[in-house]
């Protein structure tokens, strides 16, 4: 897991951030429109004030663009989940879905265990608070971002695993250990909220770019043995790349700006012998889902020797991976900088799985197996010269390009794809 420690450390002092303080940290000043602010708990025995029935539902802006925010308020009724709170959640998720705006959920569930219910809690039977029963969040067309601010419990259990991006402070990692393997880990809640803000800005389309006058490739780009993180830093616009899965030497998945446009990145590099493990495949699946769901370009840069033996037997995961790629309408670009050996290339986006633009550097090694592996002499016959020329000659890859030309070509294509998307929000007329 990546540990992101921003300069801000608002929670290092004695006063933790309130739910409203968290929201203020996330959104543009004076952009908040609160929904159902006057809502109160309807539990007969609720004593005292129950503002919002323990949940804030907000429409606001980040970087000038609309979002929906749901923040749990742990100070109300010991963070229990009330009927009014459920209705508010439903309303907010429904509005967000209808207007295609991103949703940020700030999870802060019960820490007092067991949760307290009224004697007449039986009335709640049948009102199980899984919002997916009412609002099909999986049909959303804008990102769902989760920020873990406290415990995750009750209804939240059903949603947190669905988040496109999950951000968790280091101190809370243990509370949701089973689902944080792909999360972004920060030093504290304030940093987590800052990361959420950065992700939202990344996902918003940039201003329209022209297809001429692209900047030259960055220094260090041509080193195919850069590790995944170095590669990401070299390829994406400076300072914009956010790694989702923890940075490892051989694989990084994340999102950043590429030529100004939001692009999902899969960078496999580093050690020559590096192979993908089962954990890596999970990270790939999350990245592919993000690209598919929001039609964000998927850029894969590959120098990968394959999948390790254990992962290659995880058929269910591989099947999921294949489905994510195959069903995606997003532009998929794959560049082989070093090794592109089939059992690595396959989950990283082979032509058969719909890679639209598949290119290689002149010294790329493309083959069915890793030539350095101890295979029999006979089976190695076809991979003695695993250069890209035969694949290019058969039209299986689209081009062989120098490092400088490759980045320029990719930028051009992504620019065209995103420019025409930005120009045409409406669907094509039916003929």
């Amino acid at each position: 897991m990546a540990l992101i420690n921003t300069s801000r450390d608002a929670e290092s002092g004695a006063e933790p951030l309130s739910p409203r303080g968290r929201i203020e940290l996330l959104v543009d000043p004076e952009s908040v429109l609160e929904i159902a602010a006057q809502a109160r708990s309807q539990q007969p025995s609720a004593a005292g004030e129950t503002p919002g029935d323990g949940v804030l539902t907000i429409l606001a802006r980040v970087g000038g663009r609309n979002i929906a925010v749901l923040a749990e308020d742990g100070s109300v009724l010991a963070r229990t989940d009330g009927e009014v709170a459920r209705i508010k959640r439903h309303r907010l998720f429904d509005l967000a879905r209808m207007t295609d705006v991103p949703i940020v959920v700030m999870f802060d569930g019960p820490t007092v265990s067991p949760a307290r219910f009224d004697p007449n809690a039986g009335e709640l039977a049948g009102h199980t608070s899984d919002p997916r029963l009412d609002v099909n969040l999986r049909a959303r067309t804008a990102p769902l971002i989760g920020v873990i601010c406290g415990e995750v419990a009750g209804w939240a259990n059903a949603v947190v695993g669905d988040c496109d991006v999950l951000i968790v402070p280091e101190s809370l990692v243990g509370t949701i250990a089973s689902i944080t393997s792909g999360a972004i880990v920060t030093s504290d809640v304030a940093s987590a909220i800052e990361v959420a803000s950065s992700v939202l800005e990344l996902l918003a389309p940039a201003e329209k770019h022209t297809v001429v006058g692209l900047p030259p490739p960055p220094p260090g780009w041509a080193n195919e043995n850069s590790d995944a993180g170095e590669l990401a830093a070299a390829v994406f616009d400076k300072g914009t790349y956010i790694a989702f899965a923890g940075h490892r030497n051989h694989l990084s998945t994340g999102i950043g700006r590429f030529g100004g446009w939001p692009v999902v990145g899969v960078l496999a590099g580093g050690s020559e012998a590096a192979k993908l493990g089962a954990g890596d495949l999970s990270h790939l699946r999350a990245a592919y889902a993000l690209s598919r769901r929001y039609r964000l370009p998927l850029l894969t840069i590959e120098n990968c020797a394959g999948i390790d033996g254990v992962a290659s037997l995880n058929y269910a995961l591989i099947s999921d991976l294949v489905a994510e790629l195959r069903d995606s309408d997003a532009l998929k670009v794959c560049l082989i900088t070093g090794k592109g050996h089939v059992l690595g290339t396959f989950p990283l986006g082979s032509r058969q799985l719909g890679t639209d633009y598949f290119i290689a550097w002149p010294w790329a090694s493309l083959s069915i197996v890793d030539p350095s592996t101890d295979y029999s002499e006979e089976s190695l016959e076809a991979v003695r010269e695993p250069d890209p020329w035969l694949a290019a000659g058969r039209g299986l890859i689209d081009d062989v390009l120098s490092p400088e030309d490759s980045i320029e070509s990719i930028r051009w294509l992504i620019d065209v794809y995103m420019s025409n998307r930005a120009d045409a929000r409406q669907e094509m007329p039916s003929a």
Partner: protein
Amino acid sequence: MNRMHARYPNCNATRKMLLAHNGQPMSTAPGTVHKSSLDELERRKALALGAARQDRIERQHERGQLTAHERIDLLLDAGSFRQMGRFVFGEDLADIDRTIGGDGSVFGFGTIEDRPVAVATTDPTVKGSSHGDAGTRVGRTQARILQKCRLPLFELRQGGGARITEMISSKFAGVGGHSMGDRYVFGPKHVILEAWLGDYFGPQTIADYIVTTRSAHASITSPALLEVATGQRHSADELGGSEVHARVTGQVDGVAEDEGAAIAQLRKVFSYYPSYPGGAAPRRLGDDSANRMVPELRTILPENPNRAFDIRKVLNLVLDKGSFIEFSPDFARNLVTGLGRMDGWPVGIVANQSMAVAGTIDTAAMIKARRMLAIAHLYSIPFLSFLDTPGVLTTLEQEHSRLISEIYALAASRLRPAVPKVAVIVRKGIGFAYPMMTASDPESLTFAWPSARIAFTGPEPAARIVYGREIQAADDPTALLGERAEEMRALSTPRLAAELGHVDAIIDPAETRKIVIRSLDALRSQNLPRRRSLMFTT
């Protein structure tokens, strides 16, 4: 023997020959300076551009024709071409140097006036520009990208269609089925503009604009194959020469004298189209004022209402100066169609031409009108019609040419475009032809010149039907017919239609340009519901 050896028995020897360079095998060790690989890249780039087939290039030039890359250079902005699959070669590995560069097909991307486009063309210097397996594979990849990126496609055609040497087996069953017919079932997903630059025998696309050189031929079968298969002997000119397509089939929109002119025409026409269905068509403001009065229009009509005149004079006076591009001028000459500009915005145009068949509408004219309506519909281009028609041509021949169906098809097409529509009745608007020319469409604006005459049928036929017995019994039937016809003509002035609101205004012809521009502007922001239909009709 592995699969690769089974398919390419000589692959090892050939590959070693090709892949070793400077006497050294290529390095694949990572982390080194890959100079040898970069040198190989440069060597192959040169081969891809034809370094090893100079003889073929010279022969192409001797025929007065250009190579694929020369054509692309004429089409695209300088230096903007990016080829897909440029290192693709043919199945015969012993002939790689002669086929590398796309194996007879050149696909790629570039820009025209900074607008991104896709290009597909055949390479006449490789295997008679026939389509091989590998080249076809690259074409499919390009098609996927251009659909995702919503790019317009320019096709520059010359060639023999599928490569028979590679298709002679039953593997032909795998060719084409994935894409043929797509355009009809699902509707086009991108703009296609096409030039026929040499002989092409094989399936064609129905493009949004097709220009052919005068010497080019295009047909599904070639004269040689026709003779072998059926015994019929026809020349390429008879089967699919430019004259045949321009006059008889109407399947080309323009004829150019040479390749340069044809490609220049594509660039010009593209400036009227949006980059993709649903996109905005580009506006090109010239020095022509939107408020320009056109006094010449007051006197442009002949005194005799039955005398023919050239409607193109009206179009050229009303549209932005020099902006009119006529489609298929020699096919269905009784209807003029094309694209023009009004205040810089592209408009689709149909206009009755009284100089041919008195401006009646026959089935050929209906096909021509439907094509322009489909373009307006697909690319959200406003639609402008000029009426001067005595009605639908209802001869025996026409009735036997599916007239009923064609009238219905055009009537349906007329309602489909959810775009601003303006109709100007210049002279005659008679019978079914009136609504078919989009006049008095509830969603459009309709203007009539004072000279307009609107009725179910012309004055003479109307007088014969209404006063038939009286005329028969008259001492001078001809004189009475003329008298009654004149009464009928008086009833057909646009005054009553205007009073009833069917015609929005009777206008001074001199104000036509100003009023049409104002009307299109007023209708531009209307949010009309898009009508759905299953068929794209051309």
